[in-house]
């Protein structure tokens, strides 16, 4: 009972901290666009109508009223944050739809891609570490080289190569527009590779230093085999820094997902974001940034919770 209360208290504290972070990101996003305020109503109308003529005062007033652009910056900020508190991210300049509905229609495929890629990165990094770390043979040298190169690979480039080889040349996958699992394979591999590279380096460093610990020697002296020592003892320690990195990786994966979706012409927030940046649709871009920050915050709370499960030493604290 006392433990459950403690856990609930911990969670509440983390959530409040998380809300503060999201509020701060929204403030930064708001300031970035508000401090560079030009005649936005004019550019919205020109973008919509596709003409460079100066719009009439009547249409200007209508657009200004619709998006509240003539209010003072302070007033706009209060209504933006107030809306955010009610789950309202404003209205798109060009899509005639609320930003929340634009995002919620498209974020599903992006999140699926993101978490499948994260899982794949874990599998690649852990497998390479268990098989190669701390050994001196051809395979371990290959693994080190792979991690180094994979960590520096631009996703858009890997994606294009995989597309050319496996979809165009070998015809194993549809070039674009494939739905379901077969449409997820190449994008997920593309997105997972750089993360697997980073993560592999971190896990390997920790793994090698754990292998020198006395409890490893003691396990070996009890007659435990090498593979058992590696998977049962060393790995458990080595994945702790990788867990921390997974929280950070969510942010990286969001960036990567946008590029990968563009390469494979996949549905998701990537295409909305690119269009919105092109058109100068500030509410949509800000909305996507704030939502991704919120997901990043939630992922990091989940990571901290997972930490306690993997490392029982933390329970007593």
């Amino acid at each position: 009972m006392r433990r459950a209360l403690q856990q609930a208290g911990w969670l509440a504290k983390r959530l409040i901290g998380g809300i503060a972070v999201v509020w701060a990101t929204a403030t930064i996003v708001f300031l970035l666009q508000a401090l560079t305020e030009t005649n936005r109503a004019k550019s919205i109308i020109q973008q919509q109508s596709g003409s460079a003529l100066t719009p009439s005062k009547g249409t200007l007033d209508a657009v200004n009223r619709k998006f509240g652009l003539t209010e003072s910056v302070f007033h706009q900020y209060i209504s933006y944050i107030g809306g955010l508190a009610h789950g309202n991210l404003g209205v798109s300049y060009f899509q005639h739809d609320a930003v929340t509905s634009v995002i919620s229609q498209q974020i599903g495929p992006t999140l699926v891609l993101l978490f499948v890629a994260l899982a794949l990165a874990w599998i690649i990094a852990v497998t390479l570490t268990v098989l190669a770390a701390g050994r001196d043979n051809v395979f371990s040298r290959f693994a080190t080289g792979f991690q180094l190169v994979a960590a520096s690979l631009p996703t858009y480039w890997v994606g294009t190569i995989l597309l050319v080889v496996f979809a165009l040349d070998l015809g194993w996958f549809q070039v674009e527009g494939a739905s379901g699992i077969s449409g997820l394979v190449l994008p997920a591999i593309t997105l997972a590779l750089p993360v697997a590279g980073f993560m592999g380096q971190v896990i390997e460093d920790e793994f090698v230093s754990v292998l020198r610990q006395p409890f490893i020697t003691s396990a070996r002296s009890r007659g435990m085999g090498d593979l058992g020592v590696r998977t049962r003892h060393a790995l458990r320690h080595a994945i702790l820094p990788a867990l921390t990195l997974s929280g950070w990786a969510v942010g990286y994966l969001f960036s990567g997902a946008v590029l990968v979706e563009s390469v494979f012409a996949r549905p998701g927030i990537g295409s909305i974001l690119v269009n919105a940046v092109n058109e100068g649709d500030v509410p949509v871009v800000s909305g996507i940034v704030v939502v991704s920050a919120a997901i990043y915050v939630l992922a990091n709370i989940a990571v901290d919770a997972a930490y306690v499960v993997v490392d029982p030493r933390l329970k007593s604290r």
Partner: protein
Amino acid sequence: MSALNPSFGEFVEERPALSRRAAAFARSVPFGIWIASLVVALFLIAAIFPQLLETTNPYNINLAARFSAPSAAHLLGTDQLGRDVFSRIVAGTGESLSIGFGATGIALALALALGLLAGLGGKVGDAIVSRLIDVLFAFPVLFLALMVVTVYGASVTTTMFAVGIGTSAGYARMIRGQLVAVRDAGYVEAARAIGHRKTKIVWQHILPNALRPLIALFTLGVGNAVIWASGISFLGLGVAPPSPEWGAQLAAGRDYTTAAWWLEVMPGLAIVLLAVSVTVIGRHIQARLEGTVRTTLL
């Protein structure tokens, strides 16, 4: 080797000759680092004196030779207008590297300002900056960069600032950590105990020791910045074709991937080659500064 120095009556280290030290240094650098340095040197030559490496005029349109596959005449093939891809990659090196260096410089300048405020600004300064860095970490790098592009419009300068602002949080956290560690180090406490003035301690002890890792960070950062910047151009939100900037070439070649794979693969290869080389060099510098040279790279 040490000898008794009669004037001070104590042991002093006798320094070997400069040529000996240079030779020892050369021997201590692994083979992989030499290769990486050679690659970086070639890129620098391409950036500063592109004419030395270009095989033909990179802007020369030759419709008869459109989409030629890589051959002796066109090392890396030709594009949709018959322009030589190798010469275009050479011609684009200057702009790509400038964006990479500029963005890294902007990122480190921002990070340095935040880091100094946190490391030397007392408890309150540290608390505020640390929270701010936490918040900046919640922004995906590309999204923060694209937010800057949305507000200021796509251009070379915007790309540079966008990438610089987007990547600054990571550096800020490292610099802050370094400053705090040095600030609390024993030799700083010793300097304080002797009665050195605060400014002297900051300039003579804290800053030189805390900022030395910046050399490695800068090297590592350039590759990273080039990757992000060309990604923005790839999305069509950075440097626009017909510029030979690497990302712009990737963006221009996207529509022809089925006909000519080399239009995407070759500029990308240049990016990867540069990124891997500077990463290898940066890591080596880092390891040397920390005094733990790892010999994992050949």
